[in-house]
């Protein structure tokens, strides 16, 4: 079945004239694009094009020297990652960043941390409201486990899992925060074909079932063209294309960047 887009027309996040440099190295130059509510937005580009830097700017890990980011109607210059998380931005990482010694369940539970209201002491004593709260969060996490079909590894320490499953657990932890905007940094890197297909289905299902807006970085062109609503193309820190997959595919600059013309 063809995928029906769930994208609206409201802009959830817009990036205007962002420039970021590290010393003399210009990572991003004058980038502008927007992410609409409910869409799957892909950022693509050759190695070193500035894709991860762009994500890091969006979730406040890097602070661009120039430009503005408007999220949910609020414009900002600077934000810290935990503020981004509190405002509903969750992400996964290119290199998996899970607690290796903890179980799948516990790792995903950490994603609920921001939503827990009881204090540290009450949680440690597992008493009264803290206990009730934990039960509620556990129920939510179980839905994620069911959704991602990882029941069989619920109690397995994450470090023992194969790569593809670790990626899935990481997605689970990001989902546990009930994000409005989900940033995925190469969710399918290093996966075999079957794992990629699974991951694609999960990304589409997250978007469809929870209405989560997704911004992803991906190298597999087949995947990107199949699942995204719109694609922005970066090369050497500059935006060289933006639009629907078909438009981007036909863009001569994009073709040149991918075929490796000299600059």
């Amino acid at each position, binding site marked *: *079945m063809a*995928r*029906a887009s769930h994208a609206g027309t409201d802009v959830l996040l817009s990036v205007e004239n962002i420039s970021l440099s590290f010393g003399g190295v210009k990572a991003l130059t004058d980038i502008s694009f927007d992410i609409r509510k409910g869409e799957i937005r892909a950022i693509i580009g050759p190695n070193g094009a500035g894709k991860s830097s762009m994500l890091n700017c969006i979730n406040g890990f890097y602070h661009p020297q120039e430009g503005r980011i408007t999220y949910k109607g609020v414009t900002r210059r600077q934000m810290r990652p935990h503020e981004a998380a509190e405002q509903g931005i969750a992400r996964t990482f290119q290199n998996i960043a899970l607690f290796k010694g903890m179980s799948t369940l516990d790792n995903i539970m950490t994603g609920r941390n921001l939503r827990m209201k009881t204090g540290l002491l009450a949680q440690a004593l597992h008493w009264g409201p803290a206990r009730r709260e934990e039960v509620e969060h*556990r*129920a939510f996490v*179980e*839905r994620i*486990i*069911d*959704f991602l*079909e990882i*029941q*069989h590894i*619920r109690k397995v320490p994450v470090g023992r899992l194969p790569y593809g499953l670790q990626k899935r657990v990481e997605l689970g932890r990001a989902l546990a925060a009930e994000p409005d905007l989900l940033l995925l940094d190469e969710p399918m890197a290093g996966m075999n*074909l*079957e794992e990629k*297909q699974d991951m694609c*289905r999960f990304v*589409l*299902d997250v978007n*469809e*079932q929870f209405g989560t807006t997704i911004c992803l970085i991906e190298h597999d062109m087949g995947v990107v063209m199949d699942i995204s609503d719109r694609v922005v193309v970066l090369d050497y820190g500059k935006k060289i294309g933006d639009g629907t997959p078909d438009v981007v595919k036909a863009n001569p600059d994009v073709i040149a960047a991918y075929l490796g013309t000299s600059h």
Partner: protein
Amino acid sequence: MTLPSTSGTTPADTFPRLLIRNAAAFADRPAFREKEYGIWRTYTWRQVLDETRAFAAGLSSLGFARGDKLVIVGDNRPRLYWAMNAAQMLGGIPVPVYQDAAAPEMAYVVGHAEARFALAEDQEQIDKLLEIRGQVPALHTLIYDDPRGLRDYEGLLSWEQVQKNGRGRLANDPTFLDAEIGKGKSQDPSVILYTSGTTGRPKGVVLTYDNLRRSAENAARFEGLNEHDELLCYLPMAWAGDHIFSYAQSLVAGFTVNCPESAATVQTDLREIGPTYYFAPPRILENLITSVMIRMEDAGALKRRMFAYFMGLARRVGADLLDGRPVSLADRLLYRLGDILVYGPLKNTLGLSRVRVAYTAGEAVGPDIFNFYRSLGINMKQLYGQTESSVFVTIHPNRDVRLETVGKVAPEVELRIADNGEVLFRGPGVFHEYYKNPEATAETKTPDGWVHSGDAGFIDADGHLHIIDRAKDVGRLTDGTLFAPKYIENKLKFFPHINEAVAFGDRRDFVTALINVDPVAAGDWAERHNIAYGSYQELAARPEIYDLITEQVAQVNRDLARDPQMAGAQIRRFLILPKMLDADDGELTRTRKVRRSFIAERYAPLIAALYGGQTSVHIRTEVTFEDGRKGMVEGEVTIRDMDTTPVAAARKAA
């Protein structure tokens, strides 16, 4: 058995009426459990009746009429079982389909059954049904259980919607459903089970309520099953065994059926439930042991020694204790200690602590595997049966269990051996007919009710049935030596490193074999011996692996040499296949039996080389991936020559 007598005037002789009886007799006892979101949820008999009635009424509102078929496809889920009963309430016939069947297979079954209605577990199955819709235009109503991913689909109905309509209908017209249930007769067809035969198109085996109910009742009485028993259903619903164990027997005896969370969690779920009634094909029993052994090898030295010592003791006296044969007091005490230190914890880990009755069947079970479970004190038995017999033909009686046989004749069943060695049986479970296939019915079932099983076997002096092979597969070498391929293959497969084997020899000068090494066991062996490999193909081609397998083939040859009848059928040459035999490539049936003639055709160049004297052969063959796409496997395959053991020498050694 403590079954309450039938209430009212209508006997509980159909499954809908048995459900009504159970809802009255067992009321708030658990009928089903399902693990969902990490928690076991219980449905009582009363709730199950209520849910089933609502779904039945909803189906009726959709136009489901007497004689209609309801295709059911998915993993073992309570709702799918309830739907079977719902269809039967309306005089319809459920047709469970293997959930891993590819679309064309499914199209054949749905088309042949002329089904207009289908219930699918999830998006995966719905996608397949939508794909085949063009080929089976009669199929018009698709119902799903799990809504995930189906939001943008049109023209489907959810289980809840159907039930909602049904409840509305029942509120307006509370008696119509009972009238429909009352119309059911015990001689009516109750289910059509399509067999995944080793040859040709699947055949639809029509079983009546009497067939299934009587067969289920007899076996339940034989084993003393009652409403306090627990079963974990995890084998395909389209398979006759699951239909008998999880559906017919549960309704007859009133025990609880537990549905695992997902196919991958069966082992954990087994442990949590601790079933008392358990079925596992030899393959699964073997996998369980393999996983235990691999983990044991990683344990500390002390634990390993303790394990080795007590398993040795168990091998020596465990089965005798189980069968009530005399065992010395010292051994009894030691076994007690072993139970505390090893057997108990091990059985608990396997989830088999509470098992009263465990069956295995389908393929020959290896002596090491079978004895492993029995020596731990698990009442593991074999049974023999087919879809055509409503499963039970022979069963091992308690305390009279013999590895080499498949047991004694089940209650009310008659057994006889034809002149050509084929096993024939007759009894209450004998199927009604093959659906829309009178020729096949006439070929298999004689007018006086005897069924040709297609298996070759004999009955020994104690009344135990031995099965040697498929009757049509038993052949002879050119020198007249008896060649029973399965007999040889099973001997090979009893080695953990050999996953599958196919032997050739009929009308040939000598016996050869294609062998599949087990990716887990052989892979683990390779790892322990510091042998590097990147893929299954590479592993299978390693000379060290060839050496390992050569040793095992030699052992099989020594075994064969002991029996003068089989001595001539020793394996002279073999090769290890670079790919696993797979049902997706048509090499195995869905129940994982080898399709001999198909393999002979597909690997004809390899077989020619086995008989041609080359030491290696080039292969290029297609593989089907799980998503249905195709790929190629290509490479050189080595052929090994074997020395054969002379009969006299083997006798001396023995």
